[in-house]
């Protein structure tokens, strides 16, 4: 009787060891293949009808209330301002201001995503021959390291840059119409693996490839002499099914 109980107990321990081993092997395989454990877990939860991983919760900003401004952290302790349902940054004529959003990137299931920026206006605020325009950070560690998609409304260029320790490496560029400065712009930036594609009003305008930064924050940046206002920002993961 005593012997029987012992055998039964050993069986459970062995089962537990096998289960733990399988779990550990699964985590290691996910790690090697570059899929985050969180992504796999959330996909499983969603497929079972749950909503434990609501990725858009922290990544959708309509800027209709001041609470939408809280998640954006600047490099100079300034806050975004709310004007007529838009988030605005006013340049000081000296240097650009970046606002990164760490909570959004943490809530995303993967580092492949699409950033949509709607109803963007860029006006010249200071007349001193410094740049005017609006930029978007992605996969940024901080405001000195990451990727930037820039719209320069003074020179009428869009560019992808890689920033390393504050040093700028140009990835690609394109001249854009000068009348962009007088209209509301709708940018979308698809970030998928090492390929980045920028769209304006649904039309692809610029592409770049680089694999140096694989993760990081999203953010926005206003050039020194402009006032940029934006209606909506939303970030959604690009699923592998969408890109097939």
């Amino acid at each position: 009787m005593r012997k029987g109980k012992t055998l039964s107990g050993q069986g459970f321990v062995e089962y537990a060891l096998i289960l733990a081993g399988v779990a550990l092997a699964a985590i290691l395989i996910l790690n090697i293949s570059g899929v985050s454990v969180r992504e796999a877990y959330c996909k499983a939860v969603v497929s079972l009808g749950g909503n434990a991983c609501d990725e858009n919760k922290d990544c959708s900003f309509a800027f209709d209330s001041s609470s939408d401004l809280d998640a954006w952290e600047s490099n100079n302790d300034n806050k975004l301002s709310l004007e007529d349902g838009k988030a605005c940054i006013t340049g000081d004529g000296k240097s650009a201001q970046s606002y990164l959003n760490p909570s959004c990137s943490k809530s995303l299931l993967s580092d492949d995503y699409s950033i949509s920026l709607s109803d963007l206006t860029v006006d010249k605020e200071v007349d001193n021959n410094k740049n005017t325009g609006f930029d978007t950070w992605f996969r940024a560690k901080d405001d000195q390291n990451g990727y930037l998609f820039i719209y320069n409304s003074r020179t009428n260029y869009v560019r992808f840059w890689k920033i390393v320790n504050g040093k700028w490496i140009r990835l690609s560029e394109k001249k854009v119409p000068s009348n962009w400065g007088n209209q509301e712009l709708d940018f979308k930036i698809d970030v998928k693996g090492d390929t980045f594609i920028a769209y304006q009003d649904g039309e692809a305008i610029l592409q770049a490839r680089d694999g140096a930064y694989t993760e990081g924050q999203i953010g926005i940046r206003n050039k020194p002499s402009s006032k940029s206002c934006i209606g909506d920002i939303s970030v959604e993961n690009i699923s592998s099914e969408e890109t097939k």
Partner: protein
Amino acid sequence: MSLEDSPSLEDFSDDFLSPPPDKVDKKRRFSLILVSLVLLIVILLGINFAQSGAYAQLAGKGSLSGYAVNESGDAIAVEIFIFGTDITGLSGDDGYFEIKNVPSGERSVIIAFGDIATEKIVILDAGGNTDLGTVTVPTELEIDY
């Protein structure tokens, strides 16, 4: 069933019942699964380690050198960064730079003049020197500050 078709006593000479499962065999099967799992985990851990920065450190170090010039071919003083590490360096006014103790393998070398930089991807051999040759660094590029 007729009496003739009934099994004879000889048919039950071994036993009425099939033998109970061999507990030793069951334990052996468990042990085999466990050992296979442990082996798989060790292999996966090895692959993970091979992909890590720690492996690159253990794999050995090399050095790289080169000359930095501007678009006109004139020597310029530049800063050098090895992407993903804290390793940095400076060239002399003659543009020559040499960076030692760089982890071997594929490395991204950032060569910067002021705030403008260019990037070279190199394969660094452990224990050897990788010569980048003459590297043209853009100095007149417009930056979107």
